[in-house]
């Protein structure tokens, strides 16, 4: 690209640039970008991750179509063991996308999926009958 070519009275605009760029930074900061509040630790599942090489465990309950704790973000390192225990009040099936793992759910009976997180990316863990997202598994 031949973008930067002719100098059109560059220095004259320096006094304009500084206040304008400050203004833009203010606008930009005001719009609230470049923050990741929704992924702050408090908003995710409280996961007992332990050491990075340890096991990530999460327990999720579904009652009357509500997921508790609310669907969040389960962050694990690549190669880590993951255990997802789901208890539903109705018969259903839990499915981990991408890994293509599934387990049947009987009412009130906890079912646990255990696997090694060996694919990177973000994968939805959801139920098939009620079509609820239980959590999103983020493997780094």
């Amino acid at each position, binding site marked *: 690209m031949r973008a930067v070519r002719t100098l059109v009275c560059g220095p004259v605009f320096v006094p304009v640039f500084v206040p304008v760029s400050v203004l833009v930074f203010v606008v930009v900061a005001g719009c609230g970008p470049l*923050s990741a509040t929704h992924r702050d630790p408090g908003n995710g599942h409280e996961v007992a991750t332990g050491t990075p090489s340890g096991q990530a465990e999460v327990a999720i309950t579904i009652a009357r179509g509500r*997921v508790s704790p*609310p669907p969040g973000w389960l962050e694990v390192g690549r190669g880590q063991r993951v255990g997802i225990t789901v208890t539903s009040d109705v018969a259903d099936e839990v499915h981990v996308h991408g890994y293509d793992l599934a387990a049947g759910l009987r009412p009130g009976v906890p079912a646990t999926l255990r696997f090694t997180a060996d*694919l990177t990316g973000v994968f939805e863990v959801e139920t098939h009958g009620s079509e609820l997202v239980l959590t999103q598994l983020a493997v780094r």
Partner: protein
Amino acid sequence: MTPDRGEAGSPAVMVLAHGVGERGDLPIPMFYAYAGAFAALVVSFLALGLLWADSRFRGDRAGRVVAVRVPARPARVVALVAAVHTLGWLVLGPVTGNAGPYLVYVLFWVGLVPASLLLGPVWRAANPFRLLPDRARRTYPRRLGYHPAAAGLLAFTWMELAAPEPAAPLTLLIFFGLYAAAQLAGTLRYGHAWLERGDPFEVYSTLIGHLSPLGRRADGTRVLRNPFDGLDAVRPAPGLAATVCVLLGSTAYDGFSTTPAWVDALQSGPLGRVGLGTLGLLAAVAGVALLYAACLGAAGLIGGTSGLSGRFAHSLVPIAVGYLIAHYFSLLVIEGRHAIILALGLDAGVDRDVLSPAAIATVQVLAIVLGHVAGVVAAHDRSVRLLPPARAVAGQIPLFVLMICYTTGGLTLLLA
């Protein structure tokens, strides 16, 4: 029951409830986002002072003539066969492992982006509706412009992002039934002029294709040209800005809709998944459009020129393409192979580990920042042409604020 590896052996559980993506991209590292935002800001302000003072893009008069002849009719027949093949999958295919949704959402919708970027308006060349005779009973109303295409693109993205069962064959059949009816009716009434403005996929591919080095002059001669000349050749028409805002807003909503807070609101809020999803999608498009209208209004005031709105819409095309690449690059690479494997019945697995997170993040940030840079350069050239010389630089400031908002917004979505 606590199966250790789940029931990984049973491939039967593959209900496509949420589109076709089996995996999503990880948030990009914060450093990448800041580096991208910083680069975008620096380039914008350098461009303001350092770029040329007289417009130098020559739109559809530019380029070197190349002797390429594309056999249009065979291309359209092949596209028609592919469309019938996809319909066959949707109507007759199995519930699990149906290639139809992958062919539509991945190979067609996302695949049109790189195809058009490289080769120009490919869907115009292959559009099966162009096999119909070009006999207009009426002239296409000027003020209708791109509005039918904007509505069609909004309908398609609504189906993809907010409909109850986006990847169910029935959903796709209803959409394409309505789409085909609209194209048939439009083409019979207005001839091929309708397809140029009213077919959402042709408009989408043609707009992206303006960034291709291969293009056509106004008289139809094929030329090899600077993509900026190609972009400059986008003809302003009513609804052009709306079309680009639909592309930007829907892609932004797609990024936003997987954030945990929104997922929770979708499935436990009072409006229900479809209601809130529809509102979110419309709000994203409206937000992008309002920001555009406000900044162009300001540019008009500062520049002392009215009626700028449609004349800068072309500069948002590269930004929209940057968004599309950032959001769908990994999907095309990974699920595109899946689509081909399913459609041809190949006995192969899908390797979902072909791209490292660092490679994906790099492509994403580069796409957003390069889209921004191209948008700034295109807007600069248009400003020095349209605005009085004394006001051309100051008049660009609202445009740069607009683009910086879109770019930082796009980078923020990559953090989500």
